[in-house]
């Protein structure tokens, strides 16, 4: 049980980072990235390939972040003047292309089997101690990511992103180059997603193309929409809730005797209905974006 709780917490922290990243893109900046899992995957595969080549994990993690930031930069350039929904579909397609490359380029990515046998984090420790150390690392990185995102949201950079989300013409009229802003925020979001992906690989000591299915992007979207688009704390809360639920559903079958091939469908169904319910009943999410009252806060 303790092991399971630790596992859920570690996964929550890892996906929390990915959710904070998506929240910066979609919540703050209004960029509907339906290819988030590709950025995550670039980081994950980069770390797998580099650690297998003998690089120590912190260096591999940094390289993975850089690679994913480059990926974010690329999809930002790609859709520089597309309307939002069209860009969303383009990112979905890009993510599928990334997954196809992972699936087909055996020499680099191990093909359908993926890359396993990665040394991972803290090989000196074992059992709960190792899990605890991993959790501490993941939580610290989540905290750092969340603080970074919050800081970026409250300065002029974030103000311009929010203005771009709601009225790009006005942002342009006030002298802000919104294409440059998009590209910057996607690169930053990419680095964060790459960090999450790299941690994921290191924790599970494995990465494969099945981890890059569009459903995973959707899972991250669920966290952000449930928690509250535009609020960093919301993304973290959403990640914790959704991860717990997702990991907990298989236990249901022990309680209500569901056939095991149904649990997969049930999981998907549950996630879908959460998003739908959140969108219809509480479009602002559990922790809504709040107005920044600069005047009242002045010294």
């Amino acid at each position, binding site marked *: 049980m303790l092991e399971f709780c630790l596992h859920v917490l570690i996964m929550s922290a890892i996906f929390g980072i990915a959710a904070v990243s998506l929240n910066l893109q979609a919540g703050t900046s209004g960029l509907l990235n339906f290819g988030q899992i590709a950025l995550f995957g670039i980081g994950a595969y980069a770390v797998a390939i580099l650690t297998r080549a003998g690089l120590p994990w912190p260096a591999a993690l940094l390289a993975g972040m850089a690679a994913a930031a480059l990926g974010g930069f690329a999809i930002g350039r790609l859709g520089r003047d597309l309307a939002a929904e069209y860009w969303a579909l383009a990112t979905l397609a890009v993510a599928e292309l990334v997954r196809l490359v992972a699936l087909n380029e055996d020499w680099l990515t191990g093909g359908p089997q993926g890359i396993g046998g990665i040394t991972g984090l803290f090989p000196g420790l074992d059992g709960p101690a190792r899990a605890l150390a991993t959790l501490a690392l993941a939580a610290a990185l989540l905290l750092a990511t969340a603080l970074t995102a919050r800081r970026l949201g409250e300065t002029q950079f974030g103000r311009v992103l929010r203005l771009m989300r709601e009225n790009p013409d006005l942002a342009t009229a006030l002298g802000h180059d919104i294409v440059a802003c998009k590209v910057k925020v996607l690169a930053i979001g990419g680095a964060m997603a790459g960090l999450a992906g790299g941690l994921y690989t290191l924790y599970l000591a494995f990465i494969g193309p099945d981890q890059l299915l569009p459903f995973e992007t959707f899972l991250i979207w669920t966290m952000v929409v449930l928690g509250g688009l535009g609020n960093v704390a919301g993304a973290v809360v959403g990640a914790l809730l959704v991860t717990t639920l997702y990991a907990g559903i298989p236990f249901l079958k022990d309680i209500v005797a569901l056939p095991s091939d149904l649990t997969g469908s049930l999981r998907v169904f549950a996630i879908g209905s959460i998003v739908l319910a959140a969108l219809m009943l509480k479009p602002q999410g559990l922790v809504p974006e709040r*107005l920044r009252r600069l005047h009242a806060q002045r010294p």
Partner: protein
Amino acid sequence: MLSAHDVTRSFGGLTAVNHVSLEIGAREIVGLVGPNGSGKTTLLNLLSGFLAPTSGEIRFDGTAVSARRAWQPSRLGLRRTFQLPKLPARMSVLEVMLAGGRLPAGASPWRSLLTPGAVRREEAAFLDKAMGLLAEVDLAGLADHPAGGLSGGQQKLLGLAAALMDDPAVLLLDEPTAGVNPSLRRRMADHLRRIREGGTALVIVEHDMGFIGDLCDRCLALDKGAVIANCRPDELSGNQQVVEAYLGRRRPGVPLRVVAGGTAGAKSSGARA
């Protein structure tokens, strides 16, 4: 300061702006009038780089204005407002004001993270400036309210105030007084005059002839995309073409009161809208 050379813009078969040339000097206040659909907003979009001309060229302060870098004129000191501001619902009034300022430290993600001191100092200076400008348009008390929640007239005022955050050399205003009440309108005219004293040239699209006559040094009248008059505001009512553009072909017995009647032009064109 700002000039257009033989600028044309068409949408499909419709020519919204037709071979327009103009020249705006420093500290000038120029009115832009014309019936609904005559191409005023389109001309403003062209001048500010929001639309690319089908042919012709626009220059501001020596550099060509390009629609591929619509943000650039604003940084060089050419700013505009919108006919319909559509301000963000989830940003406060003061935040919109700050977004109008030039805060290089805060606008850079790196410096936001690494030099909090510089970011704070810069922000404090612009907060003072923003509160001062808000006071001029009676919005200081609403500084922490959602900008999108303001009334239509208040949104127009906020749009104007935000454009002033960077002390532009030329300011293009699209119907700044639409939806603003008469007493505030008079104060707004004073305010705009003070802005000109501060060194800003103004181009004002307006239907309120009284406001135009009161404020402008010069007037351009547009009809069907073409400039049909370029004269002092009080000369407009004597211009046969302008009168016909507003009232249709002159019928006997219809009094001509374009300027003297204040908003006669606005009313007649409003009825057609």
